[in-house]
């Protein structure tokens, strides 16, 4: 009979990487620089608090762009803490810290690093030497792995929980990060829990037979990784009972990045007339933010959140909607954005947890007199139609992306970006299209008026 085991499944620690926010105060800069460390410390605290049997790290412990001796030292310190509590750490190398580069660092005694040449099986035993579980894993040898390494994850029997430790994008067509599909993982005989890493959002792909889960990144670092990051606390009881699989989300990120849209025409009878009104609007939204529940972990229950977990928020305010103030905002957009950003930083400086305004982005438009009728105009219908095609038609989309300049690249691989370019995703694409549409509408209206004149 299999015994109950408890473990923490974490991934993509990216230890030592930074929160990409600019012009931070010295104090915040320090907090941000330590955020990934703090998040990993929280992971280890949870491991100790919940007295887990072991800790799984499903790749990308370090960040390829932030490898540092300090990160290595910190990791070793934390592992030493775990070692004192008898907690083993099982680690695979991911695309950010493939074995080829990971060997720069020293590993503590209680850390087992899976090899990269073939899958390896590690047996977890209790103090009496009884077999508790098997962990099967394989590391990345280099920054991309096209091998279907999971296909060799073959446990000898099913008497105990067999856990597969894999760093993959779970995309069959992606040859960089272990191409595989959910079906293929399900077909892999004997694995009860697929502890995955690579995707930075917490996702419970399957809740049973087998469980397939991504814990997400413990600390988001840019506005592509917004929200609360964490790890998974997994309790596996006796095998064969669904109810014996208990997975909960443990939030770990001390800093929460948020991209919050504030509409200037959200109020029915009021619209901001000046920058001060806008600041009031954003301040009100900030108060709401601080009262909101932090945890949004999908279908997973969340473990109790430590009161002191969240040090603060870094927010990108996106002003949307239409109003007369748009004229003011659009006169010198960048300056206005800078002024609002600076004013909000000052104004929100007393909030606790802190709320730091990373930036204010103006996506507002002029008010349109008869929007409904405008929308019925052929050209606008045409525009909508084309936008739909850009979003939905791959060919048109590619054509569009090519047209918006080499400065942009489609973010097919969030792990491997060209930093002298900007990354385009569906959300940004929509925003750009929306802005383009708004601009066309306004210009057409203005152009039409000109004709009349």
């Amino acid at each position, binding site marked *: 009979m299999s015994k109950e085991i408890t473990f923490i499944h974490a991934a993509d620690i990216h230890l030592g990487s930074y929160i990409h926010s600019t012009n931070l105060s010295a104090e915040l800069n320090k907090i941000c620089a330590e955020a990934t460390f703090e998040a990993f410390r929280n992971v280890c605290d949870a491991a100790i608090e919940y007295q887990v049997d072991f800790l799984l790290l499903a790749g990308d412990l370090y960040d390829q762009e932030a490898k540092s001796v300090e990160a290595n030292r910190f990791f070793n310190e934390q592992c030493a803490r775990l070692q004192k509590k008898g907690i083993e750490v099982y680690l695979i190398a991911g695309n950010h810290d493939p074995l080829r580069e990971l060997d720069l660092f020293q590993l503590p005694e209680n850390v087992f690093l899976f090899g990269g040449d073939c899958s390896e099986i590690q047996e977890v035993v209790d103090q009496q030497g009884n077999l508790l579980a098997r962990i099967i894993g394989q590391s990345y040898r280099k920054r991309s792995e096209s091998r279907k390494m999971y296909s060799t994850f073959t446990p000898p029997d099913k008497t105990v929980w067999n856990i597969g430790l894999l760093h993959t994008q779970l995309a069959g067509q992606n040859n960089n990060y272990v191409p595989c599909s959910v079906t293929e993982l399900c077909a892999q005989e004997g694995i009860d829990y697929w502890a995955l890493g690579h995707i930075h959002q917490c996702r419970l792909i399957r809740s049973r037979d087998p469980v397939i889960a991504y814990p997400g990144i413990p600390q988001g670092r840019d506005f592509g990784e917004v929200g609360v990051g964490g790890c998974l606390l997994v309790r596996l009881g006796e095998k064969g009972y669904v109810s014996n699989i208990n997975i909960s989300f443990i939030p770990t990120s001390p800093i929460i990045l948020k991209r919050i849209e504030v509409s200037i025409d959200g109020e029915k009878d009021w619209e901001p007339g000046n920058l001060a009104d806008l600041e009031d609007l954003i301040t009100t939204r900030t108060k709401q933010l601080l009262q909101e529940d932090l945890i949004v972990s999908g279908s997973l229950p969340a473990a109790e959140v430590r009161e002191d977990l969240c040090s603060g928020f870094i927010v990108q305010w996106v002003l949307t909607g239409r109003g007369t103030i748009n004229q003011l905002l659009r006169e010198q957009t960048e300056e206005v954005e800078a002024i609002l950003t600076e004013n909000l930083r000052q104004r929100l400086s007393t909030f606790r947890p802190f709320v730091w305004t990373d930036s204010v982005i103006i996506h507002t438009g002029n008010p349109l007199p008869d929007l409904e009728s405008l929308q019925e105009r052929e050209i606008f219908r045409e525009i909508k*139609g084309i936008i739909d095609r850009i979003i939905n038609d791959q060919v048109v989309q590619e054509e569009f992306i090519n047209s918006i300049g*080499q400065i942009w690249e489609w973010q097919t691989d969030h792990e491997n970006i060209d930093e002298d370019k900007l990354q385009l995703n569906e959300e940004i694409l929509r925003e750009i299209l929306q802005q383009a549409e708004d601009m066309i509408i306004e210009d057409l209206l203005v152009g039409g008026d000109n004709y009349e004149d």
Partner: protein
Amino acid sequence: MRIKNLYIRDFGIFSNQRLEELGSGVVVIGGYNRAGKTTLLQILRHLGYGFPRGEIFPPARGKYDVEGELFLEEGSSCNLRISGLAEPVVSYSQKGNQQLWSHREIYNQLDLLTYHQIYTISLDELQRLPKNFPGREGEKLQSILLGAGLGDLVLIPQLEKNYLKEAEKIGGKNGTPGVKEFKPYNAAIREGLILRKEALHQVEEYREKQTRFDEINLEITTGEEELRSLQCQVTRLDVLKNNFADCHDKGRLEILINNSGISTREMEIWNGLPPGSLERARDLSPRMLNASKEYNRCFERFRDAVVGDNINELKERYLTHKEEFTTLFQKLSGLQEKLRNYQMNEEDCYRQEAEIVGTMDQLNSNWRGDLRKVLEISIDSLQQDQLTQQIEQYKELFTKRRVLEAKVQDLKSEEIGLIEVLRDKGEDGSENNLLRYFGVSVLFVFGGIGLSLINVWAGLLLGIAGIVGIGLVQFYKYSTESSLQVERRGLKNQLISIRSQIEDRERELQKTCHQANFVENSLQKYRQNLGIDTPISPELLKDYYRQIQDLKRDIMRMQRLEEKMELDYRELSQQLERIAKLMGLLWGDNLQSPVRELLSSSDELFAFLERGIQDLNLALDLERSEIVLNDIVNEVKELVDHREDEDIVDNLDRFIKTGESYAKYQELCVKVEVLQSQIMQSLKPDRVRDAMALMGVEVNDTQQLFAAFEEYYTRFTSVEDVIKHYEEAEKSINILEEKLKNWRDERQSLRDEIDRLATTENLEKAQHQIDQGRARLRPLAERYAVNNAAAFLLAQIRKGFIEKTKDTLLSQASGIFREVTGGAYQQIMPPEELMQTDFQTITAKGLVQETAEILSRGTREQLFLAVRISRIKEIQPPLPVILDDTLVNFDSQHISRTIDLLLELARSHQIFILTCHSQLVKYIVQRSRDSQYWQLEDGRFSLVQGEELVDYLSYTI
């Protein structure tokens, strides 16, 4: 919409003209040139829009004032009035539930240009490019002609260009990261990337430095170990150098020990013997020799002294009586002295007796030498004391009597003297003198009193003198009388005392006399007792008594001497008998002589005893020497493993010899031990022990340590060899220390470098720069993207419209064109450049005319008319159409077909046809009954019949 009434109050040629009840179909307005057709065209063209400033219109007399009554599509009507240059004002005569349209809404939101170009058609409008339509205007026209919202499309190319231009300004044509406005931020990012790459390289560098650090640490550790090894070697060599001589000596001594020749058995024996055995043996050897000699000497002396062969028996005999001999010999001198005393006492006794007898004879011849008589006289010491006491008492009483008698005599003389004194004291003459003196004084008083009568002062003085004199007399009298009385009383008392004393002395004298008589009597008794017949004085009695006493004592002393002599005699006899007896025992002589003889042969006996004693002493010496010898032999036997058949002296000598060998062996061993101890002392310090241990040998205890050192010693041939090695090791240490110093310096630098590399400062800085650059790049890139996106969208729209116009938009126009041209042309197609104001045409034979330019004028006008009619048909609700001599260039067939087309259009649209051509009117009249005809002449309208108008215009022509 159609115009029901038109009131032209003031506009150009027109003044207060009314066109009422205008037809809903074709309304032909015919007139000559300058009649006002074109002015009317302008009025109709601008009715829904007003007269814009800047455009040239025929002048008004006052201000423009035009009003039209319009029928709207749903049946309502309104007025539209233009006053001056203001916008048209719509007014409704019947305000009910009807929808109130603005003038724009009445005109389908069509802009003026569109309305102008589509609905108000002159020959100008039927040109490929109407007048005043350069550039963008031409594109707009094209969009107007193509319709289907292409009003917006007309802006597209320009907007597209603008967007692209704006985008290009930001990021060039391709939006390459490193160009235009992107450039500085891209440069910053790239710089940041390089910095980050370098910072990331820190990890490798750190690892390299760390590896080097580890290597150098290892080198230092190895070097330190080597140094320690060398230092230990130096320590060992130093110790060895200092102890080399001792080690050498020790080796030599050990060879001697090995060659000491002492057997193992002897060694064992000697090891088993207590310490000092050799000394004991050495001590025993001369002692045994001496004892042996002494024994032989005693034996010979004894043998010489005694008579007999059996010396041992003799010796035993002596020794048997040793006590007796000794006792007797010890008493010998006393005995001899006693014998001598005895003989002297005997002589003394004889002499005393003779003296006593002589004294007795002197004292009392009656005794006749009979000692008993003297002895019988009882004289004891008590009596003697009493006698002496009584004699003394007698002498005292006698003296006392004499003293008392003298005393009485003296007292009596003193009594007589006193009596005389008393008598003298009773008759004193001083009293008489006083009386005299008193009398004189009284006289002086009285004389004074008397004198006072004469001379007061003299009398008073004299009187006072008299009084003083009386006082003095009285004072003297009193004092004198009192002292005399005292003296007399004293004398009387003295006299009484003396008389009393006299009586006492006399009584005492009598008593003394009586006592003297008593004593005298007692003394008399003593005389008698002593046998003194004659009275003698007490003093003599006392001497006699003492002489008797002395005599008696002498006699008694003599008697005691005799008694003592008797005792001495007995004792002497006894002793002499013992001597004699002993002589008998020793020599067989039996001296049974009487005692007296013994006394006489005492010297012989004494000589015998002295000789015997000498022999005894010899025997004792012999015995003692034998005992001593035996004791020594026993001691030797205790010490030496002796067999009876061996000579004990030889044995002892041999024993001593081996002992000495053993001692020498021991001595060597001790020396070796001392040397070893000295060496061990050198090995004692921990550093030496550690140094030895470093050779890989066990040095858990001192023995192991020493063994290791001895082994180490054997590695070197001489002290010079050791020194050579020592110096070499010292040299190596210096070299190694220098190396270690350099390594440590390098290690410190590496440590600093590693600390620097371990920081993330550079990485943070680089990342910050990248983030900063990207943050600033983002709005630019977004602007670039938005502009390009807008351009893209517009381009897509444009393309879409081309496709659309190809398939649907121009199909109706094609039909119209085909109809107008009588099938000579089959299709109109948009140009390659959509917004180029041009069309392609396809003839019945399938020839494609790429541009309208190559068409004949008539055909071209037919083409553009067809396109416009097509658009007019599309736009709903219908608006009035105005044709100003549009068909003049058509031939009759084409006019006829066009009229048919217009009449068909007139079913839905009000069509104003302005013309000066009667033929055209004629065609219309022939084909339509419902058309309305207005004659226009010099700005005045009149409703006429068709034929009238034909005639009017024909006439003119």
